[in-house]
């Protein structure tokens, strides 16, 4: 079957819009649902839709990283953390409080500021970014040549995180 009579950009735009709605809605639910467990699960939905953005814009490597690392790793870690808390089974563990209205105001102000400046100066420059896209090849080349120092420092950060985890969790005794 040949569907090439439908314009590519319109379909891309539609798919993007679909995932954008999913992303914004799930992000809103993350901060507004009562149960911490549910909000962690909505966070997974949000991260998956961000992964979809990466795929739509041909950054397949970043999309895979997003799913493997964030949905597969970080969300598991967050769920672990939720299950570690003593009060996980009681309904007392709520994540919203009386400051939600002031938070809403701050968010609205940020939104206005951002949309104002985007309307004023446009997104000029965004289309011709100097950094190549997110395929495994370009990411690998950038990491091993231009960003070789941040790459090595990342391993030191991971080492520090490992030692930090050892210090926090600790052992019974020696």
């Amino acid at each position, binding site marked *: 079957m040949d569907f090439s009579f439908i314009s590519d950009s319109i379909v891309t735009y539609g798919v993007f819009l679909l995932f954008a709605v999913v992303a914004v809605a799930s992000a809103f639910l993350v901060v507004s649902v009562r149960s911490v467990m549910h909000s962690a699960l909505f966070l997974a939905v949000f991260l998956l839709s961000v992964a979809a953005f990466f795929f739509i814009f041909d950054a397949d490597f970043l999309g895979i990283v997003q799913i493997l690392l964030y949905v597969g790793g970080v969300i598991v870690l967050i769920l672990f953390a939720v299950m570690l808390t003593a009060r996980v089974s009681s309904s007392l563990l709520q994540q919203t409080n009386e400051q939600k209205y002031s938070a809403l105001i701050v968010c609205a102000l940020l939104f206005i500021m951002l949309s104002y400046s985007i309307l004023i100066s446009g997104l000029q420059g965004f289309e011709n970014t100097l950094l190549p896209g997110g395929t495994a090849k370009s990411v690998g080349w950038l990491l091993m040549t231009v960003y070789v120092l941040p790459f090595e420092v990342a391993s030191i950060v991971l080492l520090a995180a490992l030692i930090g985890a050892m210090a926090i*969790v600790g052992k019974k005794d020696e």
Partner: protein
Amino acid sequence: MINEYLAVLIFFVVALGFTIGGLVTAFLVRNSKPGYEKETTYECGEEPVGGAWIQFNMRYYFFAILFVIFDVEVIFLFPWAVVYKELLSNFGIFAFLEMALFLGILILGLVYAWKKGHLKWE
């Protein structure tokens, strides 16, 4: 391009149909006789012990963090492996050394945790 989207859409529809279809078919053909045994959590034939909402032991957390750390490490290995040949022809053995250093630092951390007895479950 448009055909790629179509492929994803077909996959999506099939996956959705498979799960929903299975549930719907089961709902239509089964006869409903709920009982205590049937309503307990399915644990591959084992008797479930306690509820699902228990407080986890803190020590699990170390392993979870360890998992994420080495998850990140593997993610970094992948793009390196993809461009390794090109790097080798451009920079020689340095292409290998930079990854060796990266892995070496993390392996040192693992050895540290191991020797200090954090990987043991008492």
